[in-house]
């Protein structure tokens, strides 16, 4: 993709004579920048084509035909800034990452221009070193991406050869297979539940009737009439049923609830004493 851009740029070289003069850091650009012979439309395409500031920087270095190791920071920084300014002038949407790189280049440049302190220790490295390292690292990745793109790609260079089959439908209609182990595990789960219930018999016996009375009253709060049977939980076992029964009798004795039965052997309904459950009376 970047090769195309380069071609575009080079082909414009001879033809494009005038460029809109830009402003670099507020200063008008009197001379046309070297190596910058790209019309705005092409620049816009280029900006899309560059995958980021590293890509643009590598492009500028390659145009100068120098090794990354000899990174000519002054000229590269100048060109980079010109591009960035031009992008701004043309009001192209400029990714913040380009400005971050611009700042980095400016910083390296200023460090290079500053006189070196006399007591320079050995650890002090070339201000460009970090950028050079990053550029080389990025160049390898970019080359890798390029080679990856050259690899035969499914659905671009070759296609998956498939045959339809009725086997899928056959499989969908086959009932699931179940192993003895699965069945045993299911049974073990059920037995654990049964054991937990047995365990609760003892716990429930320890429950006070008063506590159960509260639970029954709470249950009645939302419902006007509750089926007597539903107040009992089978899984609590006999002791649980007894505690609940005792609680209901006690609540009735204390006049907190009302038991209503329409006729002998029919369902018994329980309601709070404050509620008027007259409609159920025969």
């Amino acid at each position, binding site marked *: 993709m970047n090769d195309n851009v380069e071609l575009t740029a080079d082909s414009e070289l001879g033809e494009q004579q005038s460029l809109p003069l830009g402003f670099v850091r507020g200063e008008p650009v009197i001379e046309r920048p070297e190596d910058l012979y790209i019309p705005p439309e092409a620049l816009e395409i280029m900006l899309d084509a560059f995958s980021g500031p590293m890509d643009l920087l590598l492009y500028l270095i390659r145009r100068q035909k120098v090794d990354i190791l000899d990174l000519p920071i002054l000229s590269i920084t100048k060109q980079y800034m010109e591009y960035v300014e031009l992008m701004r002038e043309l009001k192209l949407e400029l990714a913040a990452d380009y400005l971050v790189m611009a700042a980095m280049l400016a910083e390296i440049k200023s460090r290079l221009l500053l006189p070196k302190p006399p007591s320079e220790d050995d650890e002090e490295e070339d201000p460009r070193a970090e950028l050079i390292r990053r550029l080389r690292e990025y160049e390898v990745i970019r080359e890798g991406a390029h080679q990856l793109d050259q690899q035969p790609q499914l659905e671009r260079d070759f296609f998956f050869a498939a045959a339809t089959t009725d086997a899928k439908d056959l499989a969908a209609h086959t009932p699931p297979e179940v192993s003895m182990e699965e069945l045993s595990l299911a049974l073990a789960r*059920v037995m654990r539940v049964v054991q937990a219930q047995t365990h*609760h018999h003892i716990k429930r016996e320890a429950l006070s009737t008063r506590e159960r009375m509260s639970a029954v009253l709470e249950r009645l709060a939302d419902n006007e009439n509750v089926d007597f049977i539903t107040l009992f939980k089978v899984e609590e076992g006999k002791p649980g049923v007894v505690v609940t029964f005792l609680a209901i009798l006690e609540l009735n004795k204390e006049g907190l609830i009302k038991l209503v039965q329409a006729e002998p052997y029919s369902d018994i309904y329980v309601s709070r004493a404050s509620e008027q459950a007259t409609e159920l009376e025969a």
Partner: protein
Amino acid sequence: MINDKQLKQLVEAAIFSSEQPVTIDQLLTGVLAQYSLNKPRIRQVIDQLQNEYNEKGVNLVELASGYRFQTRPELGPALSQMWAERAPRYSAALMETLALIAWRQPITRGEIEAVRGVSVSTQIMKTLQERGWVKVVGHKEVPGRPALFATTKTFLDYFSIQSVADIPALAEPPESDTRERDNQEEIPSG
């Protein structure tokens, strides 16, 4: 120009790589558009391909909507193994219901619900009966006369259990398990 071999390869690859059946017209206007070929020529190529694939694992067949490669019909059952894991799995609820019926048979639906603490869906009972693993063996003489469920011989055959008496032993929870649960304050669901 395209020679016979290349043409056959191209038609073959085009049909194999298509997600839909391919017509001769589609071939002529698609992959073969740059060559001046006619229908009879393509039909001839397809005839050759059909012959070549006649004895193979996949065959070239003509459908109402075009040509496509499909697997040899008699391989279906064997191939369906490949999608076996796609077959739906039974839910834990179904397996537990089945286990309970096997262990506590004959048992009513209400009794199953009492132990499991949740209601048993009609679908589960239907599935178990359709599979032939569970059947109604009578009715409990209590109000409502609920059906009594039991496992079948098909069930025993499937799981290769010699007799119903073998079932509970298989699931005897280990000692450690019982101990562990005593330390937990677990409340049964439902």
